[in-house]
Every structure is written in structure tokens, then in C-alpha cells.
């Protein structure tokens, strides 16, 4: 079996990030479902939260390559 431990580390890190992204959009969908007029207000917050959580998963991916 080839590869480094970097890949295993990235895989474990991606688990937390995927749950986090799911939670952000659960909150967004719930908010829009309860009050459809809030869609415009919540959308930038949803995208901001998505990018912040996604960043951590991508750190893992990049460091798996670089280190």
C-alpha cells in the first residue's frame, strides 16, 4: 500500500468539515423555510459560514500535498 499518513490525516479532517458545512446549510434552509422573506438577508451569512468551514478542510488537503 502506498501513500503517506498525510492522506489519512486529511480524510479524518474532512469528516469534521463536511459535518460543519452541513450544519451551516441546515440552519440556512430552516431559516428560509420559516420565513421566506429572509432569504436575501441570510444568503451572505450562509456563504460566509460555508467558506470559513471549508477553509479548514482545504488546509488539510493542501498540507497533505505540501508536507
Amino acid at each position, binding site marked *: 500500500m502506498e501513500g503517506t499518513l498525510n492522506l489519512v490525516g486529511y480524510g479524518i479532517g474532512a469528516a469534521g468539515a463536511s459535518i460543519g458545512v452541513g450544519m451551516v446549510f441546515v440552519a440556512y434552509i430552516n431559516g428560509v423555510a420559516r420565513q421566506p422573506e429572509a432569504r436575501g438577508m441570510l444568503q*451572505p451569512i450562509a*456563504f*460566509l459560514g460555508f*467558506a*470559513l468551514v*471549508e*477553509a479548514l478542510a*482545504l*488546509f488539510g*488537503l*493542501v498540507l497533505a*500535498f*505540501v508536507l
Partner: protein
Amino acid sequence: MALTALGSVLSAEEGGEAVDPSKAGFVAPTSLEFAFPDIIASDGWLTKPMLQIVLSVVVVFLFFFLSARKRSMVPSRFQFAGEGIYGFIRNGVGRDVIGHGFERFVPYLVTLFAFIYVNNVMGIFPGLHFPTMSRIGFPIVLALFTWAVYNYVGMRKFGVSGYFKNMMFPPGVPKPVYILLAPIEFVSVFLVRPVTLALRLFANMFAGHLLLLVFMLGGAYMLANESLVLNFLSPFAFITAIALTFFEALIQLLQAYIFTLLTAVYIAGALAEEH
């Protein structure tokens, strides 16, 4: 004819030697794909990403200069586009996030957004095929600019000691918690924020470029292989590459917007009257 075109695509993509598609086993793209040879014999700095940066500066300047030239009340399409982008950042990011006194940051925010977006789009632009923000040096500089701006603005408004007091000792927290909170806040605002800003943009562009490379080079390998099964399965790799290109287009816009938005959030945080 398709195979020679693919071969030239391969040799153009990689910074190192070209891999003959049908002879070697599949060589997965690594971070070496992001190293480029010197164009003129400089010391390693005059490479393709450097030229792309210069090109993006020219493009951004020309876009806003040409869109603001006539300033007629009934805007032409070009002026409408420029005003649309400017207004989007000015209102959605500047006014809504920073609030009072936001006007002096609007030029920086708009330029930041346009500059990052143009550089990101070069990742899927035909002919260029390389997002310049996937070289860590460029996001580092932008994050340092942002770091300098929000720290300087905060220190100008509150004085150096006042700024640190606001940052490390937010009100409404019981006294003993400050022992834990103050170092965390200091490290977070002073050290971690520029690092994560730069790393977020870099990692998104790096990962996106690598994804596209894997599917395109993999598809080329499968198409050039002797095995007929792989030849027939190669269109799926190319279709995935096309789908990922559209996804990358969304991510590039999103990352430019996020960098600008977080810059505004940090500036607003530095200017916030905590009491």
C-alpha cells in the same frame, strides 16, 4: 490528431518534463505542477504567474477606467457593469458591514475584489489555465495588506494601548476569564487572521487547480492508453472535468467575495466601539 493535441496540453500544463501519455503508468499531478520555468533568465521570479499578475492589474485598471470615463446619466452597458460591481461591494460589503465611515475603505475593497477575481478566473480562462492565487506568495501579500489596514485603522482611532485593550478585553465577560481570553484574542486577531485569510484563498485555488488537473490529465491518460476499456471510459473523466470547471467558476467568485467580506469584517471589528 486528438492525441497530439492532448500531448501538447500535457506538456503545456506541467512545469517539468512532459510525460508520454501511453507509455508510463498514470503520473498523478503533484505540487510540482505549480512550478514554472523562467521566461527570461531572471532569478526565478519572471515566470508565468508573474506575467499573469501584471496582466490582471492591466485588466482591472482598464475595466474600471473605461467604465467610468463617460459618466453619463443613462449608462452604457459597460458603465452599467462597472457601476454594478462597484455598487455591489460598496453597499453589500462596505456599507452593510463597516457602517459609519465606510467610504474611505471602498476603493481598497473594490480593488481587492476585482483583483482577486480576475486572477482566480485565469484558472479556467482558455490559454492561461493557471490561477495565480495558487502560488502562496500572492495571497500572503494581500493578507498582509489587510492586516496592516485593520491594525493601523484601529490604532489610529483608539491609540495603540486603547486598541489592544479593546481587542484583548472585550466587555461583558467576568474578570477571571480574561486570563484565558486575552491571549486567545491576541493570537486570533494579530496572528491567526492574516494566516487564515491567505491560506483560505491559496488552498481553494490550489485544490481547485489540482482537481481539474487530475481529471483532465487522467482523461488524457485514459484516452491514450492501449486498453479499450479505458478508452471508452475516458469521456466520463472529461465530463467530470467540465462539471468541475463550472464548479471552479463559482468557487473563484465566492473566494474573492469572501476575502473582501472578511477584510471588511476585520476592519469593522477594529473600529468597533466596544463600550
